[in-house]
């Protein structure tokens, strides 16, 4: 079930539990700037399509999720003057189109991964303009069925 706050599919409490003690859903993204973009990014980042046993359906789903994420980013960028981010968004769209909606195999995976990386950088640019640190999926890994917790390295 999609979270009513951020729209992503994540656990309702961190660590894989299905519900908070009082039975209500919690959202780790509640109150953070660019809630939908961060959650949309992480839903893809922790998605099944990156696993070794991913199916064609998983890849197709990731493609459409990425398409929605990039559309959301484009809307957010409309009111911002960040040329580098616009350029990266263009590269993300190009990578997504190269991956194609019905493709599978290592090439499609690689381009989807590139598109997601560019998207992450643009979200980071949007946050930087607001004076905030970049989005780190590692902070939210506990809310997903993450195969591995991403390594975080800041400089």
């Amino acid at each position: 079930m999609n979270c009513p706050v951020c729209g992503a599919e994540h656990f309702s409490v961190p660590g894989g539990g299905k519900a908070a003690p009082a039975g209500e859903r919690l959202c780790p993204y509640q109150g953070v700037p660019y809630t939908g973009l961060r959650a949309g990014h992480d839903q893809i980042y922790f998605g099944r399509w990156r696993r070794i046993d991913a199916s064609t359906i998983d890849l197709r789903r990731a493609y459409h999720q990425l398409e929605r994420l990039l559309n959301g980013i484009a809307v957010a960028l409309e009111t911002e003057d960040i040329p580098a981010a616009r350029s990266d968004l263009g590269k993300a769209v190009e990578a997504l189109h190269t991956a194609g909606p019905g493709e599978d195999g290592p090439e499609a995976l690689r381009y989807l991964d590139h598109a997601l990386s560019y998207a992450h950088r643009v979200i980071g640019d949007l946050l930087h303009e607001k004076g905030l640190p970049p989005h780190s999926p590692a902070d939210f890994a506990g809310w997903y069925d993450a195969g591995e917790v991403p390594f975080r390295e800041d400089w």
Partner: protein
Amino acid sequence: MIPLERYPKEISLRDDARVVLRPMIPEDADGLWSFLRQLPEIDKAHFHEDVDRREEVDRWAKSLDYEAVLPILAIRGDRVVGTVTLYRNKTGWKQRIGIVRILIAPDHRHLGLGTAMIREIRHLGEKVALNYLLAEVIEEQQAAVRALERMGFEKTGVYRNFVNDRKGHLHNLVVLLHPMSGLEK
């Protein structure tokens, strides 16, 4: 003219510390001097000048010319904790290439400040219509190399035993380029 209306700009680091980014002014000589003194030797290897001499830092501070050298300081409280500098040629065949140098105080590394500085310099590079940003980093500074790559810089070469530090030891030099959006058009 390089657009500087976005400064001062306040940003948060991973430890929730607030840091102000702004161009260096002559009155920053004291802060810059203190900052340079805490840097490890390897970070100062690229300087042409002897930055262990106070009069050299004073000379810099008095001769600021943002169109040629734009130092952006990261200031926490009243302390300089990082600098990113954009070097440009006003004329000639490299006038569309900006050279980037980033220095971060040792106790402010791995907090996202370096990445924030790279974002700033990308922004400024776009605003002054550069074609490329160029960064040269000693290979031992792997965190910097990875951060630059994550921000769109591409490693174009590694020159073995190419540069020497101030004690004469040789180091590998990594050259990274960032193509700007104007070039892609």
